[in-house]
Structures are given as structure tokens and as C-alpha cells.
């Protein structure tokens, strides 16, 4: 469980940013969401502190495309910062419903989509092998050891 962004990301790196906005200018999420972008997120971290950022629901608009990292002239690893922000946000309960649903599904079934009768029928029609039976005890054991129980209920 991390308590601060700066445990996993070097705060000094953020001071390299001179707000050129190349990142936000390239960001697909910034095109469809107001006042949002990597530049703004970075600035908020520095000016408003991490609590303001990790409690903001808009951070989840990121598509994880990595173009910001590609374009940053100061080579700041923006996705690494964002991943830390997302992880901390999740701990604070700032987690979109759809992500939580998928998480629960992966924890229970080992897969991120539901395998219903239609899926089984479609696979059979194509003469595809059946979906492999997963060792769910093994998977659950790993999830418990790595601490996913901090975020979702693993009972």
C-alpha cells in the first residue's frame, strides 16, 4: 500500500517540466475532456498537492496511449506518474464503476469478460477448443499475497 506518489515517482523529475504543453497537445483524452491533460495534471501535483489530484475523477480519462511520454522534450515519464496517481486514487476509493466491475470479474474468474452460453455456442460452431479451465485457487492466492484485498473484497 503506497501512502504517497513520491514513494514510487521521483518528484524532482516534475521540476523538469517547463509547461510546453506538447503532452496535452497530443493527448487524445484532452481533445474530448475540458481542462484536462498531462500538463494540467503535472501542474496540479506541484501546485495543489497530490491529494487534489488523486481525488479528481477526471484523471481516469487517460487512454494510456503513451504519446505524452513520446513527445515530452524533457523525457519525463508521464505514464509512470499517472500509473502511480491511478494506483493511489484506487486506494482512496476514486475508481470508476466499470473498472471495479472488471476487477471483481478477474478476481473471481481469472478473465475480464463473462463467458456465457452464447460464447460457448459460438466457439463450438467454429470448432474452437474449449476455454481453458483456470486454477482459480492459485490465482486467488497470488492476489491475496500481492495485496489486491486493499482495493476489492477477495473473500
Amino acid at each position, binding site marked *: 500500500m503506497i501512502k504517497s506518489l513520491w514513494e514510487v515517482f521521483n518528484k524532482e523529475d516534475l521540476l523538469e517540466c517547463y509547461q510546453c504543453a506538447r503532452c496535452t497537445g497530443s493527448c487524445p483524452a484532452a481533445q*474530448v475532456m475540458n481542462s484536462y491533460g498531462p500538463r494540467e495534471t503535472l501542474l496540479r501535483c506541484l501546485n495543489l498537492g497530490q491529494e487534489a489530484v488523486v481525488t479528481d475523477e477526471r484523471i*481516469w480519462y487517460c*487512454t*494510456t*496511449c503513451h504519446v505524452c511520454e*513520446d513527445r515530452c522534450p524533457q523525457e519525463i515519464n508521464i505514464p509512470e506518474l499517472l500509473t502511480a496517481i491511478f494506483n493511489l486514487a484506487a486506494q482512496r476509493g476514486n475508481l470508476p464503476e*466499470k473498472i471495479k466491475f472488471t*476487477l471483481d470479474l478477474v478476481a473471481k474468474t481469472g478473465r475480464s469478460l463473462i463467458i456465457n452460453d452464447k*460464447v460457448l455456442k*459460438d466457439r463450438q460452431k467454429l470448432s474452437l477448443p474449449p476455454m481453458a479451465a483456470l486454477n482459480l485457487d492459485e490465482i486467488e492466492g497470488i492476489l491475496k499475497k500481492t495485496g489486491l484485498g486493499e482495493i476489492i473484497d477477495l473473500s
Partner: protein
Amino acid sequence: MKYAFFLGCVIPIKYPGFEKATREIMKALGVELMDLPFSCCPAPTNLKLVHYDTWLALAARNLCLAEEAGLSILAMCNGCINTLKEANLILKTDGRRRQQVNQALEGSGHTFKGEIEVKHLLDVLYQEIGLEKIAEMVKYPLQEIRMGCHYGCHLYRPPRIMYPEDLSEAASYVPVSMDHILAILGAKPIEYSRKFLCCGSALGTNIDPQAANEITREKLQHMKKRNIEAVAVACPSCFSQFDRGQMMLERKHHDGFHLPTLYISQLLGLAFGLDQKNLGLEDHRISLGPFLEMIPDSRRQGPA
């Protein structure tokens, strides 16, 4: 040539036709695929963003399964490739992380050793099988159909992690593999503005499908400007944006793009003249009719 076949979740569950098409083209190309009890990769757009340590450990478990079978992994989805390649690289190079993960795997009987590689279908086709072999198999060339390649993002960004052997110092990278393969299949790959813009899939899956579709819409508009007739993708999530996403966009904006999208294995299957009932052609929301009409010879292979 033999690989551990990583199905992921979206293709076997949502688009099993793509899995079938991949199995068929690999059979035709003489590549053996082995099935193993892999779990969700886990997704770089989901679990990684929530709990990094769990993401790394589950990815490691998948890598261990392949290591124990002595095979490198072939994956069909950009998301899977992003997770598995990154996890593989981190665990191979960061001793502390490797120790941490192997501790988490202790009860399961797996130990990560760093013995295998991970490759996307596109790279296996382009680098391992090669264009010459693919060219030999083409029976029904794709009639110079104007195609726009959409590589997606997770396939090759960041290049220093996705292609560490060649691109560890690269600031940026422009992929060409799919364009070259399409040219060999007889299609006409066309450049278009914002070719390397994200499809927006993760945004749609996580919070806001309408916003995600607006991102895809921009790409479709640019493709239309260049008179592109069909889209080629290498990822099922990108496919969903261009196919189901386009259907939802049509209801809202009535753009009339009529741009069918095809997954790479489907395109090879069509050009190779494989039985079309094995290519997942029914899974498309944007009609493939006009596209298939452009490849007259392929109709002879159609379902009864």
C-alpha cells in the same frame, strides 16, 4: 516454428472468429500453436492502473506457464502484448522486482526465470515468417483496395520497452509492418492524418464510450478524406472502436463513413483463399458486403 498461443480475453470471448482465423492462417503458414491455461494478461488499461504489484504478479504467472512449456508467446491483442512484454522486461532486468514477484508466486509452484520472448502476431508475421513466405500463399490478391492501417498504441509505445533489443534508445518510433504486409497481400496501404492517434478504446471501456467514439471519429474523418475504403487493425479493442464504435457514431452523427474494419488474420485468410466461414466475417457491425464485392475471386470460397 512453435509458440504458446496467448488468447487474451476479448478475442476468444467477444470475437472468436478472429481466433479461428489466426489458427487457420498459422496452420497454412506451418506455425504450431500450443494452448495453455493463461488467465487475463492482465490488462494495462485496468489492473495495472489499480494495483501495480498484482498486475505484475499475474503477468508473471502467465509468463511462467510459457517458460515451463519452453515456448515463446504469440499474442493477438495490443493490450496483452503491452502487459506481457513490459512485465517480461521488468522481471528480466530488475532483480528486486523479480524477487518480490517470485515471493508472491511461491505458493503456486511457479518461478519466473526470464527464458522466453513475447511477440505480437504482427511481428511474428513480419519478422519471423517473413513477407516472402506470405507472398507465396496469396491466392486472391486484395485488388488494390485502399486501406488505412491503425496500429493502435499499446503495440509499440513506448518503443524502448516494446522493442528493447532494437529501440532501447529511441525517442519515438513509426511502425510499418502492417502496411508492408497489406501491400504484399495486394491491397494499397494509404497514409492519413493522425495515423498514430489512439482509438480511445480504454476511455470507452473505463468511463465514457461516447467520448471514446469521438476520438475514433476523428480518425475515420481523416481516412475518408484520403478515400480509404477499409481499415486494418491488429487489436480487438481497436476493432471494437472502429466497428461497433462506428455504428454508434452513425446513429448519432450520420456521417455515412461505411468504412469496414478487418483484423489482420481475416485479411490474410481472405488473400490466402481460406474457407470464409473460418474468418469471423459475421462479427462485423459495419457491413463487409461492399468490401468482399471488391475481391471477386474470394466469393467462390463463400459459405454454402
